[in-house]
């Protein structure tokens, strides 16, 4: 059984149809990349999967681990193991990074019928993961994303991912706003999470990120549909030729 199965998905934003019958199958252990021009529906796909308000599904279905994903509230999807790394991580003034992580971990544990995590064990876990991502104790005490540089924000997303250990990760334009060093650190963080029982979906405009996180499959999204699928070589081709032919096809 596939981990994530998207069938003929249609969705509106503000009454305008953005996804127009999208199909996508991701098996556990696979890394997929979706590439596409601006306005093709890339971010909409990530928000629809995560269950954001204002993104109205008008047709099709999504199965996550065989369960109807679209039935569930955003927090239920997250607790079932769907993680969205945000293109623009949101600031939470006054909420310490540690506190936020603990709330997230405990929400998931409650959801799974487990006891809340003990304070010492949690601290140890977070510090160990933070170290590999170059995140200092000081940064963990600061309010979530407040005053963070672009690189710090994305590393923070990677830390949340590492601590929450989701089954399915969706990375929305994770490379945007990153210099090459930060890109490498974040890519290493993602690569460290590749595993036979986890699926990863990378949404990106540029091929650059895929030099560091090498995908198993690449899809071209244009005009709300997957126009073409292939192996990692497709990304290289797109980088050379651009999206012109797909935009043409859509028009």
């Amino acid at each position, binding site marked *: 059984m596939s981990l994530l199965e998207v069938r003929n998905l249609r969705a509106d934003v503000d009454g305008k149809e953005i996804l127009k019958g999208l199909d996508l199958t991701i098996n556990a252990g696979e890394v997929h990349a979706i590439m596409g021009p601006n306005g093709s529906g890339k971010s909409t796909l990530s928000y629809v999967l*995560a*269950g*954001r*308000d*204002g993104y109205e599904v008008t047709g099709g279905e999504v199965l996550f681990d065989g369960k109807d994903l679209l039935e569930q*509230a*955003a*927090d239920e999807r*997250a*607790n079932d193991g769907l*993680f*969205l790394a*945000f293109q623009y*991580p*949101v*600031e*939470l*003034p*006054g*909420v310490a990074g540690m*506190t*936020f992580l603990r*709330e*997230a971990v405990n*929400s*998931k544990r409650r*959801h799974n019928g487990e006891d809340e995590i003990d304070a010492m064990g949690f601290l140890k876990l977070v510090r160990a993961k933070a170290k590999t991502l170059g995140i200092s104790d000081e940064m963990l005490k600061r*309010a979530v994303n407040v005053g963070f540089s672009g690189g710090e924000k994305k590393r923070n997303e990677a830390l*949340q991912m590492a601590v*929450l250990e989701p089954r399915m990760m969706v990375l929305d334009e994770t490379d945007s706003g990153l210099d090459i060093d930060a890109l490498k650190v974040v890519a290493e963080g993602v690569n460290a999470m590749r595993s036979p029982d986890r699926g990863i979906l990378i949404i990106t405009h540029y091929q650059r990120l895929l030099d560091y996180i090498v995908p198993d499959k690449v899809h071209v999204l244009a005009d709300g549909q997957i126009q073409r699928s292939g192996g990692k070589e497709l990304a290289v081709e797109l980088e050379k030729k651009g999206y012109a032919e797909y935009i043409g096809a859509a028009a």
Partner: protein
Amino acid sequence: MAATAETVDQVQDNSGDKYKYGFVTDIEMDTAPIGLSEDIIRFISAKKEEPEWLLDWRLQAYHRWLEMEEPTWAKVNYPKINFQDIYYYAAPSTKEKPKSLDEVDPELLRTYEKLGIPLREQEVLAGVVAVDAVFDSVSVATTYKGKLEEVGVIFGSFSEAVKTHPELVRKYLGSVVPASDNYYATLNSAVFTDGSFVYIPKGVRCPMELSTYFRINAENTGQFERTLIIAEEGSYVSYLEGCTAPQRDENQLHAAVVELVAMKDAEIKYSTVQNWYPGDETGKGGIYNFVTKRGVCRGANSKISWTQVETGSAITWKYPSCVLQGDNSVGEFYSVAITNNAQQADTGTKMIHVGKNTRSTIISKGISAGKADNTYRGLVKILPRAEGARNYTQCDSLLIGDTCGAHTTPYIESRNPSARVEHEATTSRISEDQLFYCRQRGLNEEDAVGLIVNGFCKEVMKELPMEFAVEAQKLIGISLEGSVG
């Protein structure tokens, strides 16, 4: 703490209702006849076996009150209160005041347990807090008295202090909030029934947090408590009050007076977690909380710090203030006021700078949801002799939804050219982005709102004594239930 937190959780889980403390305790009560008159005041004074001077003081206040008019300047709306339709005295009926907890009505002890305030000493917050419990009009129990007496700290009910330390009560009662101060304080002076009394002798650092829990139980009963805290030279005390009331359709009046006196080098930290019944979603019922709180920094280098977390009451009218008389004295006011549904709060502080180099800090966080109105009203006054006085004020408002209101009304009066007064204010809302971000990390909507609001209030919450911070954080979440979505 564990016991308290568990109870909060438990009560939260068991009850489908939003207000968790809305139950009524069925207990035999002694009440004065309804209404207010000289006879009622004599009745209260006689019940409490008070000395002549105190009865005179009450009667003077009463006659003064009759000539006063109810203030209307606050941004709150409510039907006129019929002061003849209130019981001014209600007490659990016992022939004598209980000498130990074993003599306290078990029903009362169960009530406090339900509220998460176990009075049995061995359970009281693992011995770090001493508690005085006030039920309707009288104090029912004070814990850890012995341990406090060893270091000379006097902590107990006000009525008891009138009997055991009349000279102290007489010297300080009305010395900070005069009997003629304002409409509600004057009413309180006439009819106050009980409250807490604290005296910290010279050079003593009070070895534990002192805490009073106020509970209004009886119907149509006003609670008029009076608290007096005196910190002698070089002493320190941290005091916390908590309040709850049953859920009733009628409004109930709570008009308290709190007076603090800090001598040279003394420090008083006064924290409030106010959770009176706020009324239902439509604004029916709830407590009218009209309270006068004031502290005077009488000696040099003294400090008074008010921290309040106001989540309850239908109406809150409250301005804990500091008179900074001693040179170099410090006043602080940290406030979180949450209004949801039809609640109204008009709250803030007054910092009166009298002495040289006096400093004050005001941090106010107002959160408004539903159809509620939340007003910060503050006065910073620098008198001519207050050379080098400084004030910093920060007022932040957070709006949830688009049917609530936040208002900021700061008054500044400076009569000394060397004074420095700073005022900052912001208004923001919880964004849909923030909520979605939290929910994508697994938090449900209410936990997400609680987390964001607690973040917004952080500067104030960190001022609360550790033992109560967790409870207060949960309370913030509970008060805002149903405010989004």
